[in-house]
């Protein structure tokens, strides 16, 4: 891997992110730059699918660092996040080294002497060899600078959050058998949260905070143009406008940027020329994932076009009936 990169200014960082196919606003670039300068973790919050995880990937690409990802879930604990002793391997080694151990014991006159000799060899069994490195430890021990992504921290238990505090403030971990392990390089840490629950103030205090909301039309259009360049500009604009209007509706789950991109790709795939009723009918399910939302969107989106076509006709019918 080639040299990692540090940025001298927010604008430099912004261009680098752009090269990674990530369109960053000035705000994101500024805050990301601060996080790099101050060595503080960055907590990003916002609705699902606005590119929080993508930001971490892009920054890893831009700085040419390795991305280490820790996906949080309920019940995640230290053994899954930090380290674990590999019991099976330790056992296997003891079995295989039994003869060698016998040699060590040979000539010991008393039980306590044998125990002392064994104690001298203890570090063999509690060395890095038997330590299973989980993401957090990996990020700390890595010889190259890394980007550590702690994804969806709000899903982990509060207990785990408290445990993270030590790691995030000092970037060191104490393993009782080995002592304290300190980070060679401070990793760039990005935490994401979908705000399903309130995070503790202690954790927030240690982080910089970035709230990413749904993008404006221009930003989203730029993203779509970048990720699905085959889509015609006119259609892309229409698509983005439609998505933006969907977000103003009261839906159970508003379409995210990633879904907009998926939809744009779908439009390319079926070679759509314009957003007519048929195209909408077939592809709307890429955007909306709840049956209720789908029906609702169909009602509001498709009615005007139907109304135009059949307006005169239905008026006639009504008049007929009245007569």
């Amino acid at each position: 891997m080639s040299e990692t990169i540090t940025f001298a200014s927010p604008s430099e960082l912004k261009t680098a992110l752009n090269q990674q196919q990530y369109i960053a606003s000035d705000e994101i670039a500024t805050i990301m730059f601060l996080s790099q300068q101050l060595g503080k973790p960055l907590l990003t919050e916002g609705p699902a699918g606005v590119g929080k995880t993508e930001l971490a990937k892009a920054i890893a690409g831009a700085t040419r660092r390795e991305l280490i990802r820790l996906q949080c879930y309920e019940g995640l604990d230290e053994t899954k996040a930090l380290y674990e002793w590999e019991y099976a391997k330790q056992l296997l080694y003891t079995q295989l080294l039994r003869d060698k151990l016998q040699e060590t014991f040979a000539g010991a006159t008393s039980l306590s002497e044998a125990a002392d000799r064994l104690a001298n060899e203890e570090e063999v069994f509690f060395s890095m060899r038997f330590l299973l490195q989980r993401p957090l430890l990996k990020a700390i021990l890595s010889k190259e600078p890394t980007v550590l992504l702690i994804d969806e921290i709000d899903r982990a238990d509060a207990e785990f959050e408290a445990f993270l505090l030590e790691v995030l403030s000092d970037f060191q971990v104490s393993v009782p058998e080995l002592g304290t392990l300190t980070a060679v390089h401070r990793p760039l840490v990005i935490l994401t949260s979908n705000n399903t629950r309130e995070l503790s103030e202690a954790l927030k205090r240690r982080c910089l905070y970035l709230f990413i909301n749904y993008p404006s039309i221009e930003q989203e259009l730029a993203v779509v143009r970048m990720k699905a360049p085959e889509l015609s500009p006119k259609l892309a604009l229409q698509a983005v406008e439609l998505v933006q209007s969907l977000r103003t509706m009261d839906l159970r789950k508003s379409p995210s940027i990633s879904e907009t991109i998926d939809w744009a790709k779908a439009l390319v795939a079926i070679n759509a020329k314009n957003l007519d009723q048929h195209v909408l009918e077939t592809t709307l399910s890429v955007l909306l994932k709840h049956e209720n939302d789908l029906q609702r969107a169909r009602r509001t989106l498709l009615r005007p076009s139907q109304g135009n076509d059949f307006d005169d006709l239905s008026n006639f019918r009504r008049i007929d009936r009245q007569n």
Partner: protein
Amino acid sequence: MDERIVHFIAALRAGGVRISLAESADALRAVDQLGVMNRDVFRYTLRTTLIKDSRDLPIFEELFPWFFGVQTPPPMQNLPEDLSPAEAQMLARALRQLTDRLRSLLERLLSGQPLSREELDQLSQMAGMDRADDMRHREWMAQRMQRLLGFKEVREAIQKLAQMLQQLGMNRQRIEQIRQLLQANAQALRDQIDQYAGQRIAENMSQKDPGDEQDNLMHRPFQALSDSDIHKLRQEVQRLATILRTRIALRQKRAKSGLLDAKATIRQNLKHGNVPFQVKHRDHDLKPKLVAVCDLSTSMRYCSELMLTFLSALQSQISKTHAFAFINHLEYISPDFAGNDPSKAVEQVLDRMPSGHYNTDLGKSLKQLVDSHLDLIDHRTTLIIVGDGRNNYKDPRLDLFSLLTRRCRRTIWLNPEPPSLWGTGDSDMLQYAPGCDHIFQVSNLAELNAAIDHLLSQA
């Protein structure tokens, strides 16, 4: 500049944002890195270091311009210099016919002179702005200052002046010119006062001693709360819930490194010839599991909003919380809370369940709970009932209540009424009381806090 930032932070605190010392130090360090030259970058810098909750963003955006805004008073126009001596004389004569106060104001407007700092300070003192420390009072305060300056009459005065000038024989175009100048300058002055009022209030906020109200608020009964108090209380409840969560976390951690479980250790290590490689500890996985039933009837209405906020806070902290609300029938309200903004969720529930007249029916609600949600209540559940036990002389269904209390681990009743009122009128509280493990009188936040503390420490 640093001092200005510190004042800004103080004002944010007064606005209800919690900012720790470490965070303000971070903000200053971050500003050192990026400087203050670019206003947007500066704003992002402060925002990312100081604001850690999307709910606090509006306050930040509101206060920021008052502290780091453009501070020059709005430009004013000068009287056209090509005024002929005759015209100037006419103007002076017309002005003399006005009252003193109006004349001085109009002269100021004619010469295009903005208010000086001292004048503004004096005005604000007269308007009673020394004690204003709430942005919501900004417009009102600005209006008071304008009134003190005589702005109310200024429109008429300009009109009158124009008339008089006409009578004195000035040409029409010139009068129109003067009138427009006066109006533009009046608007500029108004803007200046507006700006000053915002800055002044922001400064007052930064000088406000935080925390003097909070304690007071904790001990005030729920009935005696104003709307703005309720807003603050809601924040306080949220904070309380966060504290609770830390306490839960601590307790669970302590329980994990509990006693050595000899039996499990032996069983686990049988395969290793009983060499204890893997030591088993007894773990107490008694995570609290709550079923809460909340009375929303008329007699409880004054505190139901807070109680619901509290329930939603609880639910966000303890994953196994099921909340119900009842008036004459039971409704499952947990889905309303899930993933919703608490205040919006509470509103939604209160809208859906409007209070009626004498229709509270706890008995029927208990029946519904037993009929359709009995599976939620087992030996690990803590049942919380929030209500005053006033049942409109209907059947209290003590049989069902005792069934519930026998099934669950603990029953806790939170009652806003003092014990002396229990059993009076339609209150069935004394009949329910023997079945409960704990009854707390919860009529202010401090008592609520104590009750919850108790609830979790023994869960």
